C-alpha cells in the first residue's frame, strides 16, 4: 500500500466512517462480480456512503487522487456493468435505501438509489404501481434501474425506466452535485435526465430519484396457450398486435425452456409443447372483457389454452415463465444469456437461424422472450467442464447477436452493454457513432473515472477540445486501427 492509497483510505474513512470502508481481501470478494459471474475483478476498496454528501465526499476524494470508481446497486445486473476495476473503488449504494417522499396526489415518489424496485410499488400500493418490472425486481435497486434503463415483462405496454424518471440528484465525477429535472416534467434546457438514464454508471451517481407512478389497472386477465411451434405462436403474436391490442405482457417460451421450467415448478405446462405463449391483458373491466375474448379467438389454433381463473392460477402461469432462467441448470451446467432484440416480424426467420447455428455448434439454445417488443433471451446451454465447449458457446452466442443485428435489431434490449456486450457495439455503431457517444461521456466525465471500461468497445480518452474525427492516412489504408 503506497502513501497515496493510505491517505485516500483515511479520507474515505473520515467521510463515511471506517466501518463503511471495506479493504479486507475476503470481504472484497463479495463484490468482485455482479449478476454476470463470468467477470470477476477485486477492487482496491469498497465504500458504502450513506448520504448524498457522503457520496460527494467519496467521489471528490477519488477525483483528487485520480482514482476511478464503479457504482453498484444490488449487483443483480446481467451485463457486467458493475464489475469493479482493479485499480479503483467500488461505491455501493446499498445503504441509501430511504423512500424520501410518497406524493400520491401528484403520483410522484422520491427515492434514494438503494431502494428496491418492488419497494416502490409496495409504497404506492394498493391503488398505484411503478410499471418497469425487471425479473429481478425483488432485489434490484432503482439506482441500478436508472443506470441500465431497465424494462421488464410489462414494458411493451407501459414503457421503460426512462419514461418514469422526471428528476435526478446527480453527483458528477468531479464531486459536484447537480439536480437534473425535478418533480415536474419538461424542465427548461437539454433533457439531461434522458441522457443520464441508461448511461450505465458512466456519467455520475444518482443519489435521489423522482419517479412517476400510475394507478393500478382495474382488471387483469391472463392466459397461456400452447402451440406446436414457436413459428405458430409468433404468428399469433403478430395477429394480436395487428388487431390493435396492446397486451400488458406477452411472453413466449420454446420447448426446451418449457421442459426446464416445468421440471422446476410443476406449473402444469405440457412438456411436449413446441411453444408456450403467455398473454396478459390489463385495463378497464369492459375493455379487458372484449379484448380478452378476441385474444382467445386468435389463439384458436393452439393445441390447448389455459385461462387463469384467479390470482393463484395467474401466479402459477407466471411461475414457469419467471423460473425459466434459473431452471436451465436442468438442461446444462452452464449457460450464456443473451438480450438481443429483433423487429417482431423477423421472429420466425431469426429463430430458424438460431436453430441452425445451434445445430452447427452442437449445442442447445433455449429461447425465452418478450414477444411484444421482439426482445429475445436466447440461453446458450453448455458444459464448462467439457473442453472447448465454453468457447463454442461463446462463439455461438456472438453469432446469434449478429443474426439479430443483421435482422435490424439491437445487441441489448434491457440488460445493458456493460463489459459483456461492448465487443458487439461495432456491429451496430460505426466509429463516428461511437465517437459521438464519447462526446456525451466527456461532457460529464472528462477524466474517464466513472465506470471505465464499460459500454465502449475500446478505451478512449477525452481531448480538451474535441476536433472533427479524421481518419489517419494509415488507418484509411487499413494498416492501423485508430486505438
Amino acid at each position, binding site marked *: 500500500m503506497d502513501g497515496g492509497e493510505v491517505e485516500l483510505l483515511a479520507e474515505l474513512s473520515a467521510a463515511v466512517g471506517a466501518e463503511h470502508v471495506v479493504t479486507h481481501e475476503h470481504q472484497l470478494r463479495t463484490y468482485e462480480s455482479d449478476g454476470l459471474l463470468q467477470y470477476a475483478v477485486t477492487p482496491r476498496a469498497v465504500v458504502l456512503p450513506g448520504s448524498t454528501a457522503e457520496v460527494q465526499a467519496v467521489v471528490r476524494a477519488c477525483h483528487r487522487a485520480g482514482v476511478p470508481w464503479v457504482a453498484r446497486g444490488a449487483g443483480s445486473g446481467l451485463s457486467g456493468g458493475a464489475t469493479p476495476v482493479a485499480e479503483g473503488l467500488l461505491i455501493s449504494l446499498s445503504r441509501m435505501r430511504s423512500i424520501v417522499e410518497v406524493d400520491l396526489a401528484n403520483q410522484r415518489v422520491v427515492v434514494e438509489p438503494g431502494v428496491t424496485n418492488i419497494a416502490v410499488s409496495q409504497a404506492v400500493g394498493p391503488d398505484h404501481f411503478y410499471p418497469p418490472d425487471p425479473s429481478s425486481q425483488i432485489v434490484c435497486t432503482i439506482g441500478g434501474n436508472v443506470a441500465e434503463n431497465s*424494462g421488464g415483462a410489462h414494458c411493451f405496454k407501459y414503457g421503460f425506466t426512462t419514461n418514469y424518471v422526471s428528476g435526478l440528484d446527480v453527483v458528477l465525477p468531479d464531486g459536484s452535485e447537480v439536480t437534473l429535472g425535478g418533480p415536474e416534467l419538461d424542465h427548461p434546457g437539454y433533457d439531461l435526465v434522458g441522457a443520464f438514464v441508461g448511461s450505465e454508471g458512466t456519467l455520475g451517481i444518482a443519489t435521489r430519484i423522482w419517479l412517476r407512478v400510475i*394507478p393500478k389497472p382495474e382488471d387483469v386477465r391472463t392466459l397461456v396457450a400452447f402451440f406446436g411451434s414457436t413459428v405458430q405462436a409468433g404468428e399469433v403474436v403478430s395477429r394480436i398486435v395487428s388487431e390493435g391490442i396492446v397486451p400488458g405482457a406477452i411472453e413466449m417460451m420454446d420447448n426446451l425452456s418449457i421442459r426446464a421450467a416445468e421440471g422446476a415448478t410443476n406449473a402444469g405446462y405440457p412438456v411436449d409443447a413446441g411453444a408456450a405463449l403467455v398473454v396478459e391483458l390489463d385495463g378497464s373491466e369492459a375493455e379487458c372483457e*372484449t379484448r380478452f375474448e378476441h385474444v382467445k379467438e386468435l389463439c384458436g389454433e393452439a393445441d390447448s389454452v389455459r385461462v387463469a381463473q384467479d390470482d393463484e392460477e395467474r401466479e402459477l402461469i407466471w411461475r414457469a415463465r419467471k423460473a425459466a432462467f434459473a431452471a436451465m441448470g436442468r438442461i446444462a451446467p452452464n449457460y450464456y444469456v443473451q438480450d438481443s432484440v429483433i423487429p417482431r416480424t423477423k421472429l420466425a426467420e431469426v429463430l430458424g437461424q438460431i436453430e441452425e447455428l445451434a445445430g452447427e455448434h452442437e449445442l442447445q439454445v433455449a429461447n425465452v422472450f418478450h414477444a411484444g*417488443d421482439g426482445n429475445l433471451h436466447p440461453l446458450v446451454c453448455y458444459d464448462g467442464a467439457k473442453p472447448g465447449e465454453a468457447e463454442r458457446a461463446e462463439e455461438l452466442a456472438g453469432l446469434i447477436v449478429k443474426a439479430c443485428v443483421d435482422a435490424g435489431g439491437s445487441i441489448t434490449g434491457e440488460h445493458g452493454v456493460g463489459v459483456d456486450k461492448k465487443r458487439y457495439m461495432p456491429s451496430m455503431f460505426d466509429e463516428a457513432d461511437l465517437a459521438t457517444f464519447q462526446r456525451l461521456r466527456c461532457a460529464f466525465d472528462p477524466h474517464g473515472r466513472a465506470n471505465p471500461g464499460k459500454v465502449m468497445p475500446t478505451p478512449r480518452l477525452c481531448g480538451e477540445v474535441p476536433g*472533427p474525427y479524421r481518419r489517419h492516412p494509415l488507418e484509411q489504408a487499413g494498416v492501423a486501427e485508430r486505438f
Partner: protein
Amino acid sequence: MQVAAAPSTREELGSALAAAAEAGTPVRFRGGGTKQVWAPAAPAGTVELSTAGLAEIVEHNAGDLTAVLGVGVPLAEAQALFAKEGQRLALDPPDGGATIGGVVASGDTGPLRGRYGGPRDLVVGMRVALSDGTLAKSGGKVIKNVAGYDIAKLFAGSFGTLGAIVEVSVRLHPVAPETATAVGEARNAEELARGAGAVGRSPLEHHGIDVRWRGGRGAVLARFAGATPRPQAEAAAKLLSAEGLATEIVDDDEPLWDEQRAAQRGPLVLKVSSLPTRLPELLRTADELGGSVVGRAALGLSWLRLEEASAQAVEQLRRDFIAAVQDRPPDLDVDPAGPIDEGVRTLMARVKERFDPAGVCV
C-alpha cells in the same frame, strides 16, 4: 435571416452545416417554420438551413409498428400514411404544417402526451449531423434497445442547438376504434382540480385528462379509447359528478380535442411545468393576468394563453412557476426558456461544447 440552399440529402445538410461552421457563420434549422418565435432572436448574420429537402418517409414497418422518417417529413403527411394501416405516431401538437424534425427539436406535444409520452418517449433512433462534419446515429429501429447512449433524448427539445437532426426512427401505436369523452363543467378552480384528480387517480385507463379554463370557469375532459370506451367514460362522469361537476358524455369527441390543441397557440403562450395539485394556484394566476389555460392535468403541464403579450406577465408567472415562452410577438424581449440553475447551465454548456465545438448552432 439569410436562407442557404436547401439540402436534399443528409450528407448535403451535414456539408452545409460544416461549411457554415468553418466560416464561423451561425446556423438555424428550419422545418415547417411554425415555431420560429419559440427560440431567442437569431444573432446577426445567421444562415437558415431548410430541412424541406429531407422529406422521405424511409420506412413504414406496419407489422413492427415502427417508421423511419427524414427530418423534413411533414408530420401530417406521415400520419396520413400510418392511418392507412390503422396506426399513428402518437404526437398531436396543434400545427398542421410542422415537420417531424420541428416537433422533435421543440419537444412539442398535444393531448396524446398523457397516454403515450412526448417525442423523447417515441423516438427510438436518430441520425444527426454535427458542426464538425460528423454524421452519426444512436438507438436503432426497434422499440426496445439500450445499446449506447440515448443521444436522441439529448437532441429532442434541444431546438437544434447541438446539431441537426437528419432522420428519426419512431415507435407507432394502433389507433383505437372508438373514443368517448366525459366532460365535467366546473365553477371554480378547486372543483376543477378535484375532478381532474379523481379521474387521474382512479384505475380508469384514460387516453388523456385535459382541463380548460377561462374567466373563472372551466371543464375537465377525460378521454377513453379502445373497443368499448363508453363504460369507462360513464364511470369517469360519475367521479366528476361526485366532485360537484356538471357532466355529459360526448361520443363524437374529436372537435373537443381539436379545441384543446388549438388553445396551445396564441399571441403569447407560456408552457407551465408544474404539479397536478398546484393547478388551482395556476388558474388563479391566469385569472389575474386575464389569460386562459388548457392543460394535461395528470402530468402537471399547462399552456397559459394571453391575448396581450407583455414581458411583465411572463416575469410575474415565473415568480411561482417554471414556464417556457412558446408563441410570442417576435419583438417581445423575453428569454424563451426561462431561468436555469447554474449547475445545470454549466453542464449544458459542457455538452454544447462537445457536440457543437464551433458554437454555430444557434
